[in-house]
């Protein structure tokens, strides 16, 4: 017996031994086709066999039997269609013969012609039973073999699989190495100094960066069919659909993808392009504009392409640089801001003495401010650090623009204005531009080609319009026409471009860019005394630090910690606190945000619930019901109260991509409501449809265009998006489809109160929620909302022409941990 033990530990294990437990009997092991690792069909003390643990954890689905096993080397695949996904494979015996054939469940095993051919179709059985392969296919190791093997728990299996994502050759012994399993340090409320701050946030940024990298690099998609086109700028565009994209992946215009040809009709080819179209109402296809110099793409070929996602670490690098600068560079921020950000100084109020204090706190060409807005402006321009909280529709952008205008008037420029997203930056840039200040929008190079309402303010466009710069203009023209310059001309072009950029930036009153955009080397030599960050609750702390360390003496954070926070994809980093914004932490530290209190967006009935539940009842209405009354024929259950909850009890399904959900009954109701609005004269752009799940978005787009009774073009122009995509924006009418209707799994995305707040506060004239109260009412906040609708007599069921108050019973709310 002792000898046997020794054999397992010291002898080189056979190449085909189970990577978990070491069992190597050929009839009991199979190889994963994707990663070429071997696993056995023993389950040990876990609830599935080792090979299935691997397939499930690694999301692999294909296997090959060992050549020395009873069936010899066999790739498991459908006899008829060749699919190799073992999760849909099964077998059918012949009716009166001992012959068996492997067939997939759909469509091959269910085709009608089988019946006539002596196959016993009803006897189809899956190859996997009780989470093991059928023993006649892959033997189960004997009890003795299992006892001798390494005992491995599901926990260890999980850890090992995680480790393989970083290092494919890792083994169990690597798990015991120190540091592999260490949880990152939690963020704190206060920090001793900048070093400690960096030491805590640095690793979290690294975790998020690593996660992002792994996610992108694992999204390679094969068997892509490409349709070629040429854009107006003569660049070549490839159109294709990505069938299996992970729902965590948000593909955005400007992202880079690599397209490769792997077929045999053309030499192997690969090139990088920028995404210019993402899946939307007009189609699920992605448009990729190939870079100018990419050499003759195989435009004659349409299949056998592969798409890789290209990971870029720039934004993470900039955050790390900012953290380092904050720690080591005394000039990165003023002493006051340094200690406030670390949570040191007590709440004593410091104000600047302003010699030329303005008499009117407004700005040219912007609306006059209300009282709370004036206070916010006054407050912000006099203090080194201020938080301004702007609940939905309270004129946050106008207030921010006015603050910026006043700061320039008082101190001169340049003021740095940032926000986490390009859309938010563009909105604010436009408002500031109206005040006649000299504004420059700095874009990332990869986004220069993307059109926006403020494109003309972008640095790269302003250079083209400079009057003094004739030589540069000529070179630019030549470059545009021929695609490239001689190396001498290119050199000269770059020097002139740099000079022009510097000239423009030096003369600017205001420079606008995203938070990570503030790490652009072109801005590094400029010193900004005043920095304003809008939508600051949506940036992580390290992200906000990128602009802050450019010399902040005066910092204004505008945001609303009752709306959605930053998106952090790595669970570990989020759990450690990376998903808490700087705005939020400063609020917790006791810095009182200055709240804007009058909302100008929602019908008063629509603002009541959000005001009560998210803003302590403090929201006042700057619009009256009369101004928010739609003069259309629509069957509101209570005409004075333009909202209702349509009780819909359809089942949810897992969407085609496998990582999202859809609900057909809700989609049908959303279509009916939408059609009714359109028939009553509403324009498509007045309607917004919110759904938290990508699966439902894609389904709704399809369903409305094909099943809707009106022209499909009308439905195409209606924006259908996630709650997150609607943050910061408004629509006249909002229709919301909740999707989740599952008794057991909770309500996922809808569990975050901040997301509910955002969803409920997008509509100006009316809101309709389609969902299942039985499930939603389990969550406390939704329970409150449902009761609110019930009291208003707008919780209804039935058809649109005959809506009746619903008497459905709510569930008792319980705390659901997401």
């Amino acid at each position, binding site marked *: 017996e002792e000898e046997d033990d020794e054999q397992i530990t010291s002898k080189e294990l056979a190449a085909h031994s189970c990577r978990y437990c070491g069992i190597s009997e050929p009839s009991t092991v199979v190889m994963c086709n994707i990663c070429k690792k071997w696993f056995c069909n023993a389950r040990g003390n*876990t609830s599935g066999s080792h090979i299935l643990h691997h397939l*499930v954890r690694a999301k692999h689905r294909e296997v090959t039997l060992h050549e020395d096993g*009873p069936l010899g080397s*066999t790739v498991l695949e459908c006899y008829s*269609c060749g699919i190799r996904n073992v999760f849909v494979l099964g077998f059918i*015996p012949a009716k009166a013969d001992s012959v068996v054939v492997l067939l997939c469940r759909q*469509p091959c095993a269910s085709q009608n012609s089988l019946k006539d051919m002596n196959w016993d179709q009803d006897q189809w059985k899956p190859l996997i039973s009780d989470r093991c392969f059928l023993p*006649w296919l892959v033997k189960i190791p004997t009890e003795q073999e299992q006892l001798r093997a390494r005992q491995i728990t599901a926990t260890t299996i999980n850890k090992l699989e995680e480790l393989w994502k970083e290092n494919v050759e890792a083994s169990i012994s690597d798990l015991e190495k120190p540091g592999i399993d260490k949880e990152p340090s939690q963020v704190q409320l206060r920090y001793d100094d900048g070093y400690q701050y960096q030491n805590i946030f640095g690793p979290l940024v690294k975790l998020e960066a690593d996660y992002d990298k792994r996610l992108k690099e694992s999204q390679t998609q094969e068997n892509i069919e490409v349709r070629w086109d040429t854009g107006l700028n003569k660049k070549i565009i490839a159109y294709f659909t990505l069938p299996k994209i992970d729902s965590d992946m948000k593909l955005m215009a400007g992202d880079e993808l690599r397209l490769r040809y792997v077929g045999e009709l053309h030499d192997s080819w690969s090139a990088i392009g920028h995404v210019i179209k993402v899946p939307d109402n007009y189609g699920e296809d992605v448009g990729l504009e190939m870079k100018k110099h990419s050499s003759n793409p195989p435009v004659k070929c349409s299949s056998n392409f592969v798409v890789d996602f290209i990971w870029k670490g720039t934004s993470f690098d900039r955050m790390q640089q900012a953290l380092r600068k904050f720690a080591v560079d005394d000039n990165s921020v003023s002493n006051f801001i340094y200690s406030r950000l670390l949570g040191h100084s007590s709440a004593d109020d410091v104000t600047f003495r302003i010699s030329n204090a303005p008499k009117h706190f407004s700005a040219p060409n912007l609306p006059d401010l209300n009282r709370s807005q004036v206070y916010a402006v006054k407050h912000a321009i006099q203090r080194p650090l201020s938080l301004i909280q702007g609940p939905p529709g309270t004129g946050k952008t106008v207030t921010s623009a006015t603050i910026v205008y006043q700061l320039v008037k008082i101190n001169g420029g340049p003021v740095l204005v940032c926000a986490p997203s390009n859309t938010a930056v563009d909105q604010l840039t436009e408002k500031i531009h109206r005040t006649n200040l000299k504004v420059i929008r700095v874009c990332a190079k990869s986004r220069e080609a993307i059109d926006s309402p403020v494109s003309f303010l972008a640095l790269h466009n302003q250079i083209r319009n400079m009057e003094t710069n004739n030589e540069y203009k000529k070179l630019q023209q030549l470059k545009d026409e021929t695609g490239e310059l001689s190396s001498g001309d290119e050199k000269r072009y770059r020097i002139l471009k740099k000079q022009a950029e510097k000239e423009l930036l030096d003369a600017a009153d205001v420079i606008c860019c995203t938070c990570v955009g503030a790490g652009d080397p072109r801005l590094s030599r400029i010193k900004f005394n005043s920095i304003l960050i809008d939508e600051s609750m949506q940036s992580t702390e390290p992200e906000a630090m990128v602009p802050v360390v450019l010399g902040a003496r005066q910092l204004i954070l505008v945001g609303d910690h009752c709306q959605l926070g930053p998106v952090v994809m790595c669970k570990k980093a989020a759990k450690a606190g990376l998903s808490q914004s700087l705005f939020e932490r400063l609020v917790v530290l006791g810095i009182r945000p200055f709240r804007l209190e009058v909302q100008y967006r929602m019908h008063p009935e629509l603002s009541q619930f959000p005001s009560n539940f998210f803003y302590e009842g403090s929201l006042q209405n700057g619009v009256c019901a009369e101004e928010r009354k739609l003069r259309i024929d629509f069957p509101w259950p209570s005409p004075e109260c333009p909202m209702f909850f349509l009780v819909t009890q359809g089942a949810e399904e897992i969407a085609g991509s496998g990582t999202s959900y859809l609900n057909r009954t809700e989609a049908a109701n959303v279509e009916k409501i939408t059609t009714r609005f359109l028939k009553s004269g509403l324009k498509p752009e007045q309607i917004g449809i919110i759904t938290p799940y990508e699966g439902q978005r894609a389904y709704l787009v399809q369903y409305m265009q094909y099943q809707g009774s009106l022209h499909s073009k009308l439905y195409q122009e209606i924006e259908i998006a996630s709650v997150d995509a609607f943050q910061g924006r408004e629509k006249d009418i909002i229709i919301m489809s909740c999707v989740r209707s599952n008794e057991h799994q909770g309500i996922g995305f809808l569990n975050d109160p901040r997301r509910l707040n955002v969803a409920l506060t997008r509509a100006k004239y009316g809101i309709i929620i389609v969902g299942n109260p039985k499930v939603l009412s389990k969550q406390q906040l939704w329970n409150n909302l449902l009761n609110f609708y019930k009291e208003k007599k707008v919780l209804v069921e039935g058809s649109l022409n005959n809506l009746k108050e619903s008497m459905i019973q709510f569930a008792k709310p319980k705390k659901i941990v997401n």
Partner: protein
Amino acid sequence: KTEEDLQFEAMFDKMAADSYQERIKELPKVTTRDIPVPMSTKAIKKTYEQLQENDDKQETNAVPFVLMVRNSKSGKQQFKNFVAPPDSDLAMNLKMQEQKIREE
């Protein structure tokens, strides 16, 4: 059961459901072909080793079967012998079928 076990079971169910859903979505692309049951499989010869092996180990009740596969390179039919445990669905089903035929 540990948390990871439960997690694994949930992931397994999801993987199976997703795979099936994906198939339904892809359906139109797949063209199925007829699969005739091979004639006289009983005549398919076993190799010497297989016979040897069967003599040595096989419990008397184990039921011999033939798995029909397509060679992944040539696309040709291949037949592979295997034995199913007597208590497996496969063996039980065959036994029942044979009984039926005998009764007729």
